[in-house]
């Protein structure tokens, strides 16, 4: 049990997928301008990433490895993720309209979110077992959501601050992300 706890802490704080592993930076800078969109995106990523991480793990271990098709991993994973996102979208629309209203517009964006694909690949490259893959996918996504929401909080404040004209927009976003990443470096050595 303590192994899983350590893995969770490591994935959320120390090796945060956004700030230490550089995965999923496009939505990080793209949808972090407002708090409510950031929360919506964060929730959508937690939902899809956990599902995608587990499903791609099952496909890799029970389908690709026994059939000696490991070289097709990239193409199979991305198709599975794309199909999964479509499926989740249709499912939510029909069954849970309230949730769909909140997450719907973020779902198509997740297909090309490198965090989802990256975690799926890390799961199989590290040779995780099923529980490890599940815990790692979920906590990585939580780390993503945490960083995204924190960033949105900062950027909402920045909207009213006076920023030099040449730094406006993405430039100041990147510098802010740099300082956040520096703060997260402080967790290093905790595990």
């Amino acid at each position: 049990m303590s192994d899983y706890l350590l893995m969770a802490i490591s994935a959320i704080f120390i090796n945060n997928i956004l700030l230490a592993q550089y995965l999923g930076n496009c939505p990080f800078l793209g949808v972090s301008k407002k708090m409510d969109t950031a929360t919506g995106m964060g929730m959508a990523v937690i939902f899809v990433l956990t599902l995608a991480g587990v499903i791609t793990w099952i496909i890799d271990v029970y389908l690709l490895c026994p059939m000696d098709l490991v070289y097709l991993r990239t193409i199979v994973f991305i198709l599975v993720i794309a199909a999964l996102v479509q499926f989740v979208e249709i499912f939510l629309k029909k069954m849970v309209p309230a949730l769909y209203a909140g997450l719907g517009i973020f779902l198509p964006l997740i297909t090309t979110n490198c965090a989802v694909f990256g975690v799926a690949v890390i799961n199989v490259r590290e040779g995780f077992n099923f529980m490890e893959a599940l815990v790692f996918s979920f906590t990585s996504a939580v780390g993503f959501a945490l960083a995204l929401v924190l960033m949105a909080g900062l950027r909402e404040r920045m909207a009213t601050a006076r920023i030099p004209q040449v730094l406006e927009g993405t430039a100041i976003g990147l510098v802010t992300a740099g300082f956040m990443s520096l703060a997260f470096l402080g967790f290093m050595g905790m595990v």
Partner: protein
Amino acid sequence: MGLVREFTKGLWDEIPPFRLVLGLCPTLAVTKTLKDGLGMGLAVIFVLLCSNVLISILRNIIPPKVRIACYIVVIATFVVIVELVMQAFTYELYQDLGIFIPLIVVNCIVLGRAEAFASKNGVLASAADGLGIGVGFTLSLTVLGSIREALGCGTLSLKIPFTDISHVYNLFGPSFKPFAFMVSAPGAFICLGMLLCLMNIIGNLKKS
């Protein structure tokens, strides 16, 4: 004239990842050294050029409803080819870039160009566009990689893939204390932010 224009717009006006804020993950992750940045750039040029050309050829055949799925299959195919070829011929680079080679699949630049350009334009124009954006991306990666490696390690390492040419230049002599911040994650973000700021300043000067 038209083709030249499609090519050159990728080098400044729409240079990724500065003007088109896409494809940030590899930009931040593989620019610790000059040689990794260059290798990644070349891989992206190949994928972008091939996928743009093929999608442009198929643009009238692909039904609009499943176009994204088709684009993804085409792109993923070229990415796997790059992955296998790199593994076979430049194994050290393959180890350095690691997970970021399969991640070209979800590099928003590639899918972005397929959707925004190749699906609407002819083969030659798409090829010029893919090549231009690819070269622009490679330029950004090499510049960023050079700055981070020079300050962070005090060296510049150049290795041209598929050849034996490789050099490591020691820039500042033995008394140089490496600025290790630059090769760490926060350094990557701040360095990219500062470069973007510099580009804005140059843009302003050009305007006035």
